[in-house]
């Protein structure tokens, strides 16, 4: 059990997307460093059963799960709130390096018609290089389509940290961080300049995707991206680089619109947080965001609500609640996530007291205006994944995978 997590230990800071190429040519460390990175990357690719999983609810309230086992991405579902799961079905016909290490995890979304959509990041042999992959099932998860590669440049560079959202009416959106614009010319400049947020869209339920679109330039390199499908179409949420090196969060509408800054923590760091955020849209059109920061103005994990706004407008006026601190900073509250359905909003995060991990959740029944008390749902004695909240009108659940205790689906009590 312990051995399983070891490769991920090496990857506490996965910040370089194409990094070693940035070193000035002719300096001795370059080759050696490249070899070292190659070895660390290969150790990670060889990981058979990583901890990071993906989860989603369908319209019937069934829990769907995507996880990597024996280098295959497998999907199963549970009709009893996670008590028992169906036999897992392989999405990847051949073993491949599905990255599942915390910020990178398989993503699942179930359309109203029952179509099961899956996206993931496939690590390639060259360090930090990867493709964004997608497959779907139109027969209730019995079989999956042949996986396709969504990044249409097909370059062996970093395309990672995918997020997935569907509208239930045939719309499918996938975003990721992409280093395709990095070139010999830009590589010698600031390492922050040439990674961006890219998107692929489908209007036919994932049968085909249109050309990739660059949503934003100049993003942070190694924090997960997030997507929510609102009344205005899909909205992306990610850690951006503002100014020279301020790593705060942004929202942009994939249908077109500006990059809008939605956190003002003023976190300036020549390093890698590897700690992103989440977004969800409720039934009233509000957005709910959660994020981590270690900025000048605030440190820790936070929640805020953003009232419905026209995100296509450059002068969009953002009506945002004050950041609400979550969890116990002394216990390293981190890796927050959010889910919403109708008026119900569920937040979940992880804490660590120096010895053990614990998972926490907080539920609102009125679209984020009032919150129940934080609830501690479980502990883990060894390594643990992030918490994944799932909510609908009847259930509030947190999926949590842990090395010693295995995968648990935990019920959140009503406030």
């Amino acid at each position, binding site marked *: 059990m312990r051995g399983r997590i070891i490769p991920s230990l*090496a990857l506490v*800071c996965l910040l370089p997307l194409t990094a070693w190429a940035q070193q000035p040519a002719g300096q001795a460390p370059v080759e*050696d460093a490249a070899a070292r990175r190659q070895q660390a990357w290969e150790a990670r690719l060889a990981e058979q059963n990583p901890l990071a999983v993906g989860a989603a609810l369908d319209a019937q309230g069934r829990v769907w799960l995507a996880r990597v086992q024996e280098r295959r991405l497998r999907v199963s579902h549970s009709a009893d709130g996670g008590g028992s799961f169906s036999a897992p079905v392989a999405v990847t016909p051949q073993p491949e390096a599905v990255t599942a290490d915390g910020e990178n995890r398989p993503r699942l979304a179930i359309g109203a018609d029952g179509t099961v959509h899956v996206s993931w990041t496939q690590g390639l042999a060259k360090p930090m290089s990867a493709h964004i992959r997608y497959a779907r099932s139109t027969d209730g998860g019995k079989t999956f389509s042949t996986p396709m590669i969504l990044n249409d440049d097909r370059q062996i560079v970093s395309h990672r940290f995918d997020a997935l959202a569907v509208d239930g009416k045939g719309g499918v959106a996938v975003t990721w961080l992409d280093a395709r614009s990095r070139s010999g010319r830009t590589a010698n400049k600031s390492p922050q300049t040439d990674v961006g947020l890219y998107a692929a869209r489908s209007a036919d339920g994932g049968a085909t995707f249109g050309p990739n679109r660059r949503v934003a330039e100049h993003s942070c390199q190694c924090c997960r991206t997030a997507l929510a499908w609102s009344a205005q179409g899909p909205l992306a949420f990610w850690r951006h680089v503002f100014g020279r090196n301020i790593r705060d969060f942004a929202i942009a509408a994939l249908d077109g619109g500006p990059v809008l800054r939605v956190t003002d923590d003023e976190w300036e760091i020549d390093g*890698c947080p590897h700690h992103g955020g989440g977004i969800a849209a409720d039934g009233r059109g509000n957005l709910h965001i959660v994020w981590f920061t270690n900025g000048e103005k605030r440190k820790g994990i936070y929640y805020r609500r953003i009232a419905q706004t026209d995100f296509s407008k450059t002068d969009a006026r953002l009506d945002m609640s004050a950041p609400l601190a979550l969890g116990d900073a002394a216990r390293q509250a981190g890796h927050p996530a959010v889910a919403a359905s109708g008026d119900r909003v569920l937040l979940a995060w992880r804490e660590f007291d120096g010895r053990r991990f614990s998972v926490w959740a907080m539920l609102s029944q009125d679209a984020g205006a009032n919150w129940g008390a934080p609830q501690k749902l479980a502990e883990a004695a060894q390594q643990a994944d992030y918490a994944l909240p799932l909510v609908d009108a009847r259930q509030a659940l947190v999926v949590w995978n842990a090395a010693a205790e295995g995968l648990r689906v935990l019920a959140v009590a009503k406030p």
Partner: protein
Amino acid sequence: MMRAWLFALALLGTTAAAAGQLQPFTDDSLPAIQKRLAGRPFILTLWSLTCHHCAKELQTLGRLARSDRTLPLVIVSTDTPAEARQIRAALQRFGLAHVDTWVFADAVPERLRYAIDPSWRGELPRSYLFDAAHRRVAHSGLINEAQLRDWLKRQRAGG
């Protein structure tokens, strides 16, 4: 995997007694280091093989170490003992093989991060400047070489 890791750890444990060798960093290592360096200022730097900024950080520290053989440096890799060979090679390459070097040795690295500093969230590179009284200042991200040299000068002037 587990066996390989434990084997690497055991190997490290038995061979790391001498200064200048990679030692397993556990949750009681920092107090031991501070005890050994009581009354002396020192720099603690945390890095990883997979961290691009960390390579730059090690280059800076290597440059400092070359110009000052008495630089009080403690360098801790957050990789695993299984990667000891690559870690040693990197330290060698950056001219840091002779300093006090360590590697995280716990299946849950968060435990070690917490033992060093509960307010450190794992971002790298991470450094701590300890003065002679071992009051420390933390820094996340690349450290500025001029500021580091200035700090060193002040520590030495202040005794």
